[in-house]
């Protein structure tokens, strides 16, 4: 069951990610990204991170991506045009990211030799109670700092998106 679920949702995530990069229209890209996020939230569940899985659904796919889709629809942004300026990134991008991937995989397999096998239900410390407890005791200061960050972001967004900007 674990293998089946992991394989299926990992494939969904990878196909969605490739589709995000390949699709020409922003709406298609956005929906591909939503599918990646939903697949990742299932993987979080398999890893026992129940709260994070739900937060992934609520915050990422339920709010952030809705905002993206809203902006794309609002701007009525069409398909991306072929760019005339082919930069250095076009030539070096693919080989370099492939190299990055190979290097990362190598480091992972070498350094994580004592890795556990993932079994659904083996780790139960990711429920809302445990996450909340850790968040409001050990990580209270970072939590408060992020709340200030969000306040600043709200103010910034309001100032930037005001109509009469000159």
């Amino acid at each position, binding site marked *: 069951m674990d293998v089946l679920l992991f394989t299926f949702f990992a494939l969904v995530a990878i196909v969605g990610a490739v589709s995000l990069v390949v699709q020409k229209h922003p709406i298609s890209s956005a929906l591909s990204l939503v599918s990646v996020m939903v697949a990742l939230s299932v993987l979080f569940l398999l890893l026992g991170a*129940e709260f994070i899985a739900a937060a992934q*659904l609520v915050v990422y796919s339920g709010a952030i991506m809705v905002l993206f889709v*809203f902006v794309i629809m609002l701007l009525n942004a069409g398909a991306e045009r072929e760019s005339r300026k082919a930069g250095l990134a076009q030539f070096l991008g693919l080989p370099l990211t492939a190299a990055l991937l190979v290097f990362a995989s190598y480091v992972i397999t070498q350094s994580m030799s004592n890795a556990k096998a993932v079994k659904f239900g083996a780790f139960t410390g990711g429920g809302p109670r445990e996450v909340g407890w850790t968040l409001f005791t050990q990580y209270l200061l970072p939590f408060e700092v992020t709340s200030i960050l969000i306040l600043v972001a709200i103010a910034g967004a309001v100032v930037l998106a005001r109509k009469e900007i000159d």
Partner: protein
Amino acid sequence: MDFILLSILKTAIAAPVLLGTLAYLVWIERKVLAHVQLRIGPSRVGPHGLLQPIADAIKLLTKEDFIPSYVNKFYYWLAPWLALMFAVTAISVIPVGPVVEVFGIKTNMGQADISIGLLLILGLTGMGVYGIALAGWSSNNKYSLLGGLRSSAQMIAYELPMAMAIASPLLIVNTLNLREIVNAQAGYTFGIVPNWNVLGGGLQIFSFIIYLICAFAETNRIPFDLPEAENELVSGYNTEYSSMKFAAFFMAEYCNIITACSVATTLFLGGWHPIIPNELGGQFLPTLICMFFAGVLFYHALNPSRPSDRLSMGVIGAVILGLGLMFQVPVVKDLAQPLFWFASKAGFLIFFFIWVRGTVPRFRYDQLMRFAWLFLFPAALLNLLVTAFIVAVKSN
């Protein structure tokens, strides 16, 4: 028994019941709305129009599935099913009764019993907006696009006060598991007032009102049905849809109403707990209520306003009387009574939704946004703050 087999069995029971409820909800809505407006409503197909949902289903199934030439085909096809899928999935975590033992199998009445139940419902209903937004965008029609845009803006705006309104009863019950939320509301203050969150459990009446207002907006119902405002936007996001795709949107909307009302029931109205304690006769109340309605129907059968009423009212009255007596049968009782209380509470809220539709006019779009951000959000925040303060004082 195997968990998978049991789940399949429960789904096999729940899915037809849900579909039937959806179909007859339309009939109920049309009837109630008609009586609010001093009309009769559907009355041609079957006695009192009772076969109208079946006629509607046949009509929608056999209608030509027309796809305009200028739409974005893939997303046009995807959108209604996306909306329906998320709406139906959200229902699966709602518990409709306690853990019961039937034929030696111990199981909970409800599909899934998970520790993040409420968050999952919030997430799934939040995802439902993709169906509407995509439908609006892919239809390639300015009215549809406006409907989709309005819907996504409205969803984001009203999800915030909704989450805040949900958070304050959560402070009191201390869990996100819907079953535990209901269990925390068991018992009675002074032996008579139920310990529901909205009453004796925490006096969360303001949270309840804010939640209900937001639920109207989240389910795109009047007075917040701006995404499909028919006299501004033709029909909003579903202008270009017909046949089964239109039906899918329709079913998704009603599914969302059922989810919203069920969440309100579990969170504020004590789920399946009876309104008066069993010691004072709470277990006989379902039967009494059914007998009352059966009596009203029998009265109309004896004094018919139309000749056909003599038969139809009598038969329906007998069915309701039988249902009422079923609540006292020893084996069925444990199963049926919680179901009755849950269904009647959720049903009353659904009736309230229809009632409001018949009463309140639609908001203007700027009023809608101003109401969300300038009134509802601060009110929900204040409510959460006061509740947190009270909980903190109580726990010390």
